[in-house]
């Protein structure tokens, strides 16, 4: 079996409750499913390094990102994090958003995600689905070590959703970028051939 790219043993506080995760994976992709408010988004934030309230250890790609006396800052982790509502920079154009980390391959990624015609637009003039695609592009272009996608296809219609999930999965597979994908629609996971992690009763289980 290949070396796991992600090995977590965490206790993530969620209000009065907590989410316990003790899992490792070497699958190319992981799909996290579970009820709303179950901690899917918070788990992604912990892995991205922007949520520091979790206790425990995170090892990714052979490096300890979080552990006793260790906390690797998010700008050193270089994950491609796509938050659920895209979080585009409102003062930058679509092109500037995409190129925020770096611009090599911008045209190719814009083409892949179908946003080539939107490059000069301001984020406020985009639809929800367009914003999500730009956020995806921004993450893909950042040369990520791994991808953390939070409902990245949720604002898209069914046919576009399936096509885009397939294209992003192929893009990640080509570049061997491991992906952790949060979704409430398990059909998103098929093109990624993702291992399924299910959140239930405050625990994350495989299967």
């Amino acid at each position: 079996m290949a070396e796991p790219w992600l090995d977590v043993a965490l206790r993530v506080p969620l209000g009065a409750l907590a989410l316990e995760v003790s899992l490792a994976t070497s699958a190319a992709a992981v799909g996290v499913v579970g009820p709303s408010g179950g901690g899917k988004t918070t788990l992604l934030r912990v892995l991205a390094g922007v949520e520091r309230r979790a206790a425990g250890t995170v090892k990714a790609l052979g490096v300890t990102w979080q552990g006793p006396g260790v906390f690797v800052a998010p700008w050193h982790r270089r994950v491609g994090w796509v938050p659920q509502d895209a979080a585009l920079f409102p003062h930058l154009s679509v092109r500037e958003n995409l190129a925020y980390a770096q611009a090599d391959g911008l045209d190719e990624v814009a083409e892949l995600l179908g946003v080539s015609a939107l490059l000069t637009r301001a984020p406020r003039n985009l639809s929800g689905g367009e914003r999500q695609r730009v956020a995806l592009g921004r993450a893909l272009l950042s040369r990520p070590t791994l991808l953390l996608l939070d409902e990245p296809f949720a604002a898209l219609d069914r046919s576009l959703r399936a096509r885009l999930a397939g294209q992003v999965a192929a893009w990640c597979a080509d570049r061997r970028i491991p992906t952790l994908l949060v979704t409430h629609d398990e059909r998103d996971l098929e093109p990624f051939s993702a291992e399924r992690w299910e959140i239930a009763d405050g625990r994350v289980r495989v299967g």
Partner: protein
Amino acid sequence: MTPDPWSAVGLSVVVGAASTVATLPVAVATAWVLARKRFFGRSVLSALVLTPLVLPPVVTGLLLLTLLGRASPVGRWLEAVGWPVPFSLTGATIAAAVVGFPLYVSAIRGAFEAVDPRLEEVSATLGATPSRTFFRVTLPLALPGVAGGMVLAFARGLGEFGATAVIAGNIEGRTRTIALAVYALLEAPDGKSALTLLLVVSVGLSVIALVGFELLNRWQRRRLELTDG
């Protein structure tokens, strides 16, 4: 000597502008720390920043005089290096800066707090260090609020009276700003036309400042807009 109204207007503008520009970096840094950092003593710092707002300006002036006057080591040092504070334009500028600081910081702090912290988080995951995130995301998004704070601080500095009178005196052509000239003119027998001029200029400047502040506020709201079309 009857106060020269245009000299007072000129001095006020110089004092207002100098105090605003000189304290800009401190105001931005203080506002950012209060808006974004959680640390022991944050409430104390927050209260300290507001102190000049609640303290009578004359008392603020007296405190500044004690701290920076000729009787204090700092004051003696400033005088030795050619920057005497009492009865000087420097003193008037310091008084305006201190009295305007609470408004300055509050306006900028509000602008920083209005910036969604998740944008800064996304920037960090895209490899940006905290300083890069500050200069590429936080500050550009808060820019209208920073400009609004400058307008408020300038307007406050323009009209400063109490602290200025104590630390800088009321010296024609040197420290007699608009508010001090108005006070002097109230007692001058032939000061009516000069007084009218100063009142018109003061009201005019205040209106410009308030309209500017409101326009900047609107710009700030538009800049942060990212709602569904």
